[in-house]
């Protein structure tokens, strides 16, 4: 039987979501020991007796990690537990050298919150409230490399190699309550939720939130029930979802896969599945032969966390502006059209444009540079825009140089190219490359006289009052001066030369 189309799926089935997001905090040191957390170090250079679980080592919690987790809870409208503990989650797997993960079980530090997200639909913007079940602290696992076998996958590998640099990096898990009622918008709502979380976390400055490096990871639980039914279907849990686009694709794909099984009278298996970035499909993971039995119990090496109410209020007072409100404010303050606003959010340049504006640049000019020329270069180089050598300070300077008439837009593009190539600040590039607007009226007049002689017929038309013909002459003068002239000045001089009012 052919796969049902998405429209066929939503005509019959109602999706129910549940999302678990893991966030690596950007603390300097690990959750329970003083090893560095830096990404990309040589294997096993960031380990110690605690994160390697050598005998007698004792964990001590990182106070910054607790503070960051409380900030996250507050930003997600959660209650903060006056008393919470760490628990051991026991399982045998080589990525956890202790054979347990320190996590939190029935006493998470934050609980009962919500996030509102907005998506664009055919009927206009629509809001959904995603309720948060809990936010708790735990530690990341090591990284495994599977050797042998055809695919580098764990199945069929001969053996595995472990790097524990990541083991023990502070991890915060954010779990939603079940999310019903999103209907056909389920994939978009999930994506919008993860995007909103990412923006909130970035605003709090508690994580790098780089999905491609795994500092923000999403597990998506999906089930289907017949429309109108109150009985939840069996869910699958898709792991490995490492981009916003993948969140949407994974959920859409799972809805179709479930519907196909259910339409055929088969059952959905409760299992973990892995998202395949290349195909957009999921693959069955380790099947759980028995219900998981983690035998959680309070970790006897760690003591309870009991944050003072006054400290929580101090932290609450430092919360930054909520991303959704910030977007609304920016849109109004800068008077940005809907389409342009969406383009800025999609291109992820809002922060960088705002930074440029705060340095004094005109919002429209700043936006145009980042969204236009600089985005184009980033695409061409296949780099994130933030990784280019050009900074908000550079763009602010550039905008100023153009406003002062030192550069034309065309010359400014050459300057951008130089800044991106690492030639220095815009002023430095201007100096090094000898880029300057021809402001010398004498040189301009010479070019104008030359062009008017060459195109005497056109010049005559302008002289006779036919002003639209001046465009061709101005273009020729600009060409003659290799784009270094200020077009407005050329127009003034040309019209004056041909006896026309300016």
């Amino acid at each position: 039987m052919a796969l049902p189309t998405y429209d066929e799926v939503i005509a019959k089935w109602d999706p129910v979501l549940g999302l678990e997001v893991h966030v690596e905090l950007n603390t300097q040191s690990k959750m329970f020991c003083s090893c560095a957390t830096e990404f990309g170090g040589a294997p096993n250079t960031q380990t110690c007796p605690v994160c390697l679980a050598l005998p007698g080592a004792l964990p001590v919690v990182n106070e910054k990690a607790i503070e960051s987790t409380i900030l996250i809870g507050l930003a997600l409208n959660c209650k903060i537990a006056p008393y919470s503990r760490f628990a051991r989650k026991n399982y045998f797997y080589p990525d956890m050298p202790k054979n347990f993960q320190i996590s939190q079980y029935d006493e998470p530090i934050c609980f009962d919150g919500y996030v509102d997200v907005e998506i664009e639909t055919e009927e206009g913007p629509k809001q959904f409230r995603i309720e948060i079940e809990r936010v708790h602290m735990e530690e990341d696992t090591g990284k495994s490399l599977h050797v042998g076998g055809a695919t580098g996958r764990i199945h069929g590998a001969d053996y595995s190699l472990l790097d524990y640099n990541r083991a023990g990096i502070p991890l915060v898990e954010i779990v939603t309550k079940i999310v019903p009622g999103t209907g056909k918008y389920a994939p978009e709502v999930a994506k919008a939720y993860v995007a909103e979380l990412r923006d909130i976390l970035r605003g709090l400055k508690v994580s790098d939130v780089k999905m491609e490096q795994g500092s923000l990871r999403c597990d998506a639980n999906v089930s289907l029930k017949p429309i109108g039914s109150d009985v939840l279907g069996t869910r699958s849990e898709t792991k490995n979802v490492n981009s916003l686009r993948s969140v949407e694709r994974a959920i859409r794909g799972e809805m179709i896969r479930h519907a196909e099984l259910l339409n055929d009278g088969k059952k959905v298996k409760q299992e973990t599945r892995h998202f395949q970035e290349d195909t957009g499909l999921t693959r069955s993971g380790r099947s759980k032969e028995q219900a998981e039995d983690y035998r959680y119990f309070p970790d006897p090496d760690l003591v309870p966390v009991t944050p003072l109410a006054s400290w929580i209020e101090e932290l609450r007072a430092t919360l930054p502006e909520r991303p959704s409100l910030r977007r609304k404010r920016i849109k109004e303050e800068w008077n940005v059209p809907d389409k342009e606003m969406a383009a800025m959010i999609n291109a992820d340049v809002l922060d960088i444009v705002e930074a440029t504006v705060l340095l004094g640049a005109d919002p429209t000019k700043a936006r145009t540079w980042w969204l236009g020329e600089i985005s184009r270069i980033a695409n061409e180089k296949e780099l994130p825009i933030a990784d280019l050598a050009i900074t908000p300070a550079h763009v602010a300077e550039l905008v100023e140089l153009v406003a002062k008439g030192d550069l034309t837009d065309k010359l400014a593009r050459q300057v951008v190219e130089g800044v991106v190539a690492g030639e220095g600040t815009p002023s430095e590039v201007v100096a090094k490359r000898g880029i300057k607007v021809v402001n010398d009226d004498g040189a301009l007049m010479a070019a104008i006289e030359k062009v008017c002689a060459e195109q005497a017929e056109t010049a005559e038309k302008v002289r006779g009052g036919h002003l639209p013909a001046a465009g061709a002459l101005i273009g020729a003068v600009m060409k003659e001066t290799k784009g270094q002239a200020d077009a407005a000045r050329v127009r003034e001089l040309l019209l004056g030369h041909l006896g026309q009012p300016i």
Partner: protein
Amino acid sequence: MSSLSRDDVAKLAGLARIEMTEAELVELSSQFGLILDAVARVQEMDLSGVKATSHPQPLENVARPDVVLPSLSPEDALSGAPAQEESRFRVPQILGEAE
């Protein structure tokens, strides 16, 4: 008297990755029963005003500042490993072929 079946003990042994003989499984199932009975005597006391305890000392909020200290060298970190390769711990096959 509480009791644990032979299968309960086998399951616990499996979760803890402890290999046990049939004789040990049977013997332990009765011993576990005695241990549980001994512990269960605590429940005979009136503990309504006593908070559950997970740490012998009445301590709270023991934390350390977020400061990086030197780690072990990879050589030291790997010095106790039964097998290693490319500065990584080498472990036996985790999962067999996919079904």
